[in-house]
């Protein structure tokens, strides 16, 4: 809401761990979905092993955990439009953007055109974006 009295802060959620084995990835996602209700400027980062969270075609049957990778595509519905992926983290793991699921949002101001939410950044560029934040949560 563009309310003169309301301060909009920049919140960043850093995801740095593999999706299963610990609860961090799912907890982070839940916190993000709740925080989305407060109309703040939200961005997500996937770096280090966190890039595995967005891998395509995940199958969790054997580990007995819910496959929440599908939930990331709902982020657009929650008006979360900035998802930074650190390029070096992908390269160090032999991955590229092609290995990750695509994430989109619909731009209200552009006749609901579908746009990419994923922003590929280098480690140096990411450092600058982190520096601009008011609050950074690390998971």
């Amino acid at each position, binding site marked *: 809401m563009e309310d003169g009295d309301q301060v909009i802060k920049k919140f960043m959620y850093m995801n740095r761990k593999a999706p299963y084995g610990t609860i961090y990835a799912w907890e982070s996602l*839940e916190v993000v*979905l*709740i925080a989305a*209700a407060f109309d703040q400027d939200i961005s997500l980062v996937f770096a280090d092993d966190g890039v595995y969270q967005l891998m395509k075609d995940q199958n969790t049957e054997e580990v007995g955990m*819910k*496959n*929440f990778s*599908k939930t990331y595509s*709902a982020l657009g*519905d929650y008006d979360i439009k900035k998802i930074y992926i650190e390029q070096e983290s992908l390269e160090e793991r032999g991955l590229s953007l092609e290995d990750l699921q695509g994430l989109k949002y619909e731009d209200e101001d552009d006749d609901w055109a579908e746009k990419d939410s994923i922003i590929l950044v280098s480690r140096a560029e990411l450092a600058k974006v982190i520096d601009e934040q008011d609050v950074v949560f690390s998971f």
Partner: protein
Amino acid sequence: MAIEVDGQSYETDEEGYLEDLNQWRPELGSAMALADGAPLDENHWEVINFLREYYEEYQIAPAVRVLTKAIGKKLGKDKGTSKYLYELFPYGPAKQACKYAGLPKPTGCV
């Protein structure tokens, strides 16, 4: 807690949400609504079915704001308002409709 339908018992949590969402059948939704004192009509079912599809696709129940927007897109603008949804589900559209749909209580639900 549990709910009985056609002589079969289904486990629910203390707020009446189904424990195992794979057990869900439409009859269960109807029985839960009757127990709450308000039978379901086709407008309720539109929303309940929408929630089930949303869950199937995204593995979460949407927040009420997201639900309102999505319903408007799918079922028409006149239905995509919180007034319409609260009339159908006075205890909170996401919360109450999710219960009848056999889904977990939505994250950060209002």
